């Protein structure tokens, strides 16, 4: 049984608070003692089914005599009365604690549909049961969310101090040693500029220098895993599903190495690759090449899934949407195209910039896309509706973009890395943080689950501390930075078992769970065709034969009219009512306007 506070209780208590003039706005009980401030304050609950509770709450503040009668009633009611403790005190917080509304919203999955009509009682019962189960799950998730151990980082400046003026050294000094050690520079001036990639857990870093230097390391413990020079140009580097494998796009072919740096595969089908993206749940490595080909490699079985000729020239701007595994490609004519392996044509073509597109990034929830172009603009799009939200002008233009798990945007302009906060909300005027790298920046990447931004530049690599960038609480079964070798092996087996097939990639990943009406209609049509009649057709109403002249043709027609269009009546009534309402409102508005126009203002008397 779950008891919740009803809105009426709240009203009552608010009134009490106002009369006694306490500072507390919404105490939970009407007692004068000041209760401690609780985290759920200001949440609203639905008190539909807890009318009883409210009465009890009212009774709480009655005189002792009334209390006696109430307890008697409670005794009669059985289980509904509140529990009595031996001391005689009643529980000031009866029932289970309410769950904050915004937490509940976070775990909401879709809207509730309408219940099927009563005659379909079995289906109705199934729907009711499943909705109750999902409600419970949502509530329990929200409760669990309150107990997560870590809080996100933050950086606040003093009065009239911009956070973007705070240097990395200051931050490293201010925080504890382990966090401070996350700001470091690797001086690798010989083989730069560097591209980089963090593994999915955020423990491992992969660096690829333009002139052939490839190295992978456990960046927190600064342990080198492998280091080599491939003696060829390196265009891009990417971790595959775990830290045991990584892919390197070299001058001609695509190579796959293991964590010791041993070359496992040279994939000759993938030539002149410039950019790579790895789709972790599909085990797909998507590559964009200088010849204009977008290719997908299934790394679990080593097969090429799709090779699409984009006919858009050199492809050196690429991002993937983590929400639906769609690849975004930026082109030199200012368009961004969206691709799946299932279609030879782009799903969407967006004209984003007047010049060429320099960089694209998509946020974790798949809602926003940030692009930067040769026209020195930085634009934010809502990619659910393909609508521009914000447009910023950056004096130098951004060459590399990266979005963090908590929505920070890093943009590299020349040798300066700027980090912006909340670029899709209110227009941002100042960066959140800024840092000047030693060389021109070649790649930026936020480290998952850490407040760290990796910057690869001409003179090596810089690991920046960006407070508030990373998701503070990881999920141990999905990406666990602290996993042991055994755990990694088990995770790998499970992940491979639930590898999503490339055919399931589409704009809406939840489409599989929706009802397929069109197929049903088609099948029904086929069935009608095969049977020669519609098995689901409603029988036509034939009035019963009545005696004593009550079945004259006129009366029969009358009876038929009574049931005609019975199913549509409610809809028609509703629409008519709505229309009348709108008409009425319009008329009233007109009247008001007319009255306002007719009214004389106070200044009219001075007019001649």
């Amino acid at each position, binding site marked *: 049984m779950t008891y919740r506070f009803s809105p009426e209780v709240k009203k009552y208590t608010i009134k009490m608070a106002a009369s006694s003039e306490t500072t507390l706005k919404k105490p939970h009980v009407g007692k004068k003692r000041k209760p401690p401030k609780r985290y759920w304050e200001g949440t609203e609950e639905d008190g539909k089914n807890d009318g009883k509770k409210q009465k009890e709450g009212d009774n709480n503040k009655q005189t002792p005599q009334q209390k006696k009668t109430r307890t008697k009633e409670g005794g009669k009611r059985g289980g509904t009365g509140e529990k009595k403790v031996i001391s005689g005190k009643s529980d000031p917080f009866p029932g289970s604690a309410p769950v904050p509304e915004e937490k509940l919203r976070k775990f909401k999955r879709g809207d509730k549909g309408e219940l099927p009509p009563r005659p379909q009682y079995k289906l109705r019962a199934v729907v009711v049961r499943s909705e109750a189960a999902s409600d419970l799950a949502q509530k329990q998730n929200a409760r669990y969310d309150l107990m997560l151990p870590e809080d996100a980082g933050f950086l606040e400046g003093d009065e009239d101090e911009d956070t973007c003026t705070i240097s990395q050294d200051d931050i490293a000094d201010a*925080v504890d040693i382990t966090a401070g050690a996350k700001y470091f520079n690797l001086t690798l001036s010989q083989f730069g500029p560097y591209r980089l990639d963090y593994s999915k857990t955020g423990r491992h870093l992969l660096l690829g220098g333009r002139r052939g230097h490839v190295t992978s390391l456990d960046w927190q413990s600064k342990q080198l895993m492998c280091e080599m020079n491939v003696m060829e140009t390196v265009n891009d580097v990417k971790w595959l599903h775990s830290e045991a494998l990584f892919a390197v796009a070299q001058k001609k072919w695509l190579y796959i190495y293991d964590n010791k740096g041993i070359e496992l595969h040279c994939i000759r089908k993938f030539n002149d690759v410039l950019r790579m993206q790895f789709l972790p749940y599909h085990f797909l490595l998507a590559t964009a090449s200088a010849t204009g080909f977008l290719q997908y490699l299934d790394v679990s079985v080593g097969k090429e899934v799709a090779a699409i000729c984009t006919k858009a020239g050199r492809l050196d701007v690429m991002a993937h949407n983590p*929400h639906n595994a769609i690849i975004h490609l930026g082109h030199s004519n200012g368009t961004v195209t969206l691709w799946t392996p299932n279609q030879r044509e782009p799903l969407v073509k967006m004209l984003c910039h007047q010049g060429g597109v320099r960089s694209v990034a998509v946020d974790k929830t798949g809602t926003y896309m940030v692009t930067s172009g040769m026209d020195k603009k930085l634009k934010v799009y809502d990619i659910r509706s393909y609508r521009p939200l914000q447009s910023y002008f950056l004096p130098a233009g951004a060459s590399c973009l990266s979005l963090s798990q908590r929505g920070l945007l890093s943009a590299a302009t020349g040798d300066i890395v700027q980090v912006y906060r909340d670029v899709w909300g209110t227009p941002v005027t100042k960066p959140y943080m800024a840092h000047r790298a030693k060389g021109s920046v070649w790649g930026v990447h936020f480290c998952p689950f850490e407040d760290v931004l990796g910057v690869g530049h001409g003179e090596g690599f810089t690991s920046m501390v960006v407070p508030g960038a990373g998701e503070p609480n990881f*999920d141990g079964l999905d990406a666990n930075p*602290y996993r042991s070798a055994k755990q990694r092996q088990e995770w790998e087996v499970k992940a491979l078992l*639930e590898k*999503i097939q490339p055919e399931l990639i589409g704009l809406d*990943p939840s489409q599989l769970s929706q009802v397929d009406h069109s197929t049903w209609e088609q099948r029904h049509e086929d069935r009608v065709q095969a049977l020669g009649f519609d098995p689901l057709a409603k029988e036509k109403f034939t009035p019963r034969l009545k005696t004593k002249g009550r079945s004259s043709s006129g009366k029969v027609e009358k009876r038929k009219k009574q049931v005609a269009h019975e199913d549509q009546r409610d809809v028609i009534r509703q629409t008519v009512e709505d229309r009348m309402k709108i008409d009425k409102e319009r008329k009233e508005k007109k009247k008001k306007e007319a009255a306002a126009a007719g009214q004389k203002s106070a200044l009219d008397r001075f007019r001649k």
Partner: protein
Amino acid sequence: MKVKVLSRNPDDYVRETKLDIQRVPRNYDPSLHPFEVPREYTRALNATKLERVFSKPFLASLDGHRDGVNCMAKHPKSLSTILSGSCDGELKVWNLTKRECVRTLQAHEGFVRGMVVRFCGTSFFTVGDDKTIKQWKMETPGYGEEEEPLNTILGKSVFTSIDHHQKEGVFVTCGQQVDIWDEQRSSPIRSFSWGVDSFSCVRFNPVETELLASCASDRSIVLYDMREATPLKKVIMNMRSNTLCWNPMEAYNFTCSNEDYNLYTYDMRYLDKPFTVHMDHVSAVLDVDYSPTGKEFVSASFDKTIRIFPKDSGHSREVYHTKRMQHVISIKWSSDNKYILSASDEMNIRLWKANAAEKLGLLAPREKAAVNYSQKLKDKFQHHPQIRRISRHRHLPKSIYSQSKELRVMKEARRRKERNVRKHSKPGSMPVVTEKEKHVVTVVK
């Protein structure tokens, strides 16, 4: 300047000693778990495939009879005991856990036609071709004692079936007429006949214990009330029904196995058309038994297969067959809802799992959770074409496969002809007769 940077203490996230289990911190935020639906779908697909991999329903064959097994009876109190009677009059009592015969006795001359264990489980009744009803003790006679019936009643004609009342000392037999007997008397206390020359099966209703239903050779199913002198009503169908079984949970429903390859589930109150027609067999259906949950039933057919039907589905969810199993004559669903026993012509009783992919024996809690989870997933995605195709796929013997194909072609041809006739005749002159209405001739009260 106020600053806080994420800095986790690894001690909070890794286990302290090797003896501990690993720590797995969870975060259920949906944005950390993308592709929820496609991943669940993939899991459901894997679960469905694994179900097909692990579906090995055949458990054991109990051999020992020297002629075809004609009937079986469940013990109401002991799950491990089953009785079987064969065509040479021999009766065997089996222990299912040991899978061996514990007792053999020569019950009748000629067929053992019917058998029923008394509700208390201390004795059982048999009827045979020698026109007798015999009552036997369930206990094995001691050393030196002879196998003798407690009681023998000599009837006038051959009895074909017997059933016992749920809680009183009354039983019912059928043959040329339906007789109700008191255990203490040697002549029936009541006899019913309704212009029929023979009955093949009679069953007490498990809930409304005074009600009876019987299958008669004039293609009818007759309902009786034990307290009344005359039968209640009957429904006459196109073909003869062999046996019937009441649904133990919704006891106003019963299912009969018909000679026209179908099974029909009727609501006792509305006999004018069956509630569901269960098709899939390709030969006459000989026996039917409900699961104790009343959600499913199993049918035995002359086409050498067993099929399991959900009670409200027109088609079977499962078909069992082996190379050696001949015409299946009798079938029982065990009282713990886990096993199915089939008795067939070639002298064997076979033990099957009711749920082919189920793992037998004790399950660890995590195993149980995994089974429940995958079951839920399968339910959720059951209508997806890929999953439905895999879960429905069964291998059938060639003869049955080709026969069912032939039947399908015949049915389609008939339907096509009807459609064409309807198309070219006056509208309304060819009324649509549904599959349910087709098989019922009339209801007599």
